[in-house]
């Protein structure tokens, strides 16, 4: 079924067993985002110090795409340099706006490459981006740099 391009195994696995879910009490930045067209919600917390994301956690309600996206984002950024998040963000946003025409760079994006199929479904692009946009705000809310 054509749907399998959207719901890749990796996505459904992250949805079922999300990583980094559950907000940690210590953080330097936090942001809550909601997709007004559907009501999906996510909160992202980051603890940043010395240019490094010491911890990234999230919580929320939403569809498989938005929840899996948060889980993948945790894997990609937790304990990584802050810069890496911004590089990934650019790459991921570009992929999401490619309408299925760009091959994802798996070396950079890792599990996030599995979201390539989402870009063909304009209504779902926002779902995939939701945690990324929340994390961006959380990073900027951070005063520790």
């Amino acid at each position, binding site marked *: 079924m054509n749907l399998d391009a959207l719901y890749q195994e990796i996505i*459904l696995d992250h949805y079922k067993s999300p990583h980094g879910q559950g907000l940690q009490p210590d953080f330097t930045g936090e942001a809550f985002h909601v997709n007004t067209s559907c009501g999906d919600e996510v909160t992202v917390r980051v603890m940043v110090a010395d240019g490094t994301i010491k911890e990234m956690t999230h919580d929320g309600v939403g569809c498989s795409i938005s929840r899996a996206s948060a889980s993948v984002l945790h894997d990609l950024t937790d304990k990584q340099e802050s810069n890496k998040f911004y590089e990934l963000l650019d790459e991921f946003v570009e992929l999401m706006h490619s309408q299925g025409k760009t091959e994802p760079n798996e070396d950079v994006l890792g599990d996030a490459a599995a979201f390539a199929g989402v870009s063909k479904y304009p209504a779902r692009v926002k779902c995939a981006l939701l945690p990324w946009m929340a994390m961006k705000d959380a990073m900027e809310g951070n005063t520790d740099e």
Partner: protein
Amino acid sequence: MSFDLANKVRPDFPILDRIVRGGNALVYLDSAATSQKPNQVIDAEAQYYREINATIHRSGHELGELASAAYEEARQNIAGFVGAKAQNLIFTKNATEGLNLVAYAFLNATLMHRNGQTKYAQYALNPGDVILLTEMEHHANMVPWQHIAQLTGAAIKYIPVSDDGVLELSEDLFTNNCKIIAVTHQSNVLGTINDVAKIAEYANAIGAHLILDACQSVPHLPTNLENLNVAAAAWSGHKMLGPTGVGCLFLSDDLLLGLPPFLLGGNMIENVTFEKSTYRSDNGKFEAGTMNIAQVIGLSAAATYLSEIGLDRVHQHEVGLTRKALTALLEMPGIRVLGPSEMSIRGGLISFEVNGVHPHDVSQYLDANGIAIRAGHHCAWPLHRRLGAVASSRASFYLYNTEAEVEQFLAAVSEIRSYFKVA
């Protein structure tokens, strides 16, 4: 049970032949959001533009006369369709505008009254007054009232909804300080058909203005607004086979004559000077500027189309389809149906949750099978919170849906949980 109606009418709806995602034939189960349009409606609009397009009520040429006559005939026809007089019918762009019109006219009455215009005393809202809504209202029949409550000092109260999606009506709620009661005829989430006659009885006993959201009833149930005894009723054309961009507002004589206007500009005035303006006293008071003439004429064609079939037949057809779907969903493992399980108080739509699968994923799965339903909170977010649902999936039926489509829908729903590996 026979489902002949759909087969008879489908040839009139060109979009129903469409092939959608994955090469599937379209199964359109989203008519509660917006209905599809028969050729009769599409052609009526096109014919208007090709033959008589002109501004109405103000042109002294033949096209203007023809356009004015067509517009007023449409008003007659649509008013007849809902058991109202043409003089009580106002055209808007959608139901949302109609409900806002009433809310803002009350706000204007309040402010003008506070400015010394005593004739509006009867419609002025003051601290201590109550606007009574229900927990199942669409945002369009909730947010405007919250807004004017905030600005006038009136309070908002709610008629509660039971766990199985029925209004918990009790006469105690209808206190003497209730000035406005705004209620949906049929819930666009639960499918529940409310007992408007009973509510009107309570409302009239305390002299409150009863405002009806008729969006989900006028297109689907035989409706006689005069018999319903409401002060106002709003609905949208696009949900009853009509064009987008047109809605209807019924105002009783009381509100029509008594409320001040809402939108201000051409046509609605009686006299304008540099200093001040006076307004018409008939339904024109509420129709400012160049109206949606072609859409009104298209909507009239839709009313004629539905009348010729008969709303009772449409309703019966929908009840048949809904009963079939409801019975199956209630028995399907991992499915929670919102709203009453009793068909007798239900219209032609069903909202449901699939355990472990978010509604967007449900609708995406169905879409991959060509089945169009809607997922989300359906502009009734507080109701979803009340029922403990993040959001829901909704299938809705209309005269053109077939029994086979319902079967396709049920088959697809039954596969969802295993696709998403939660069963």
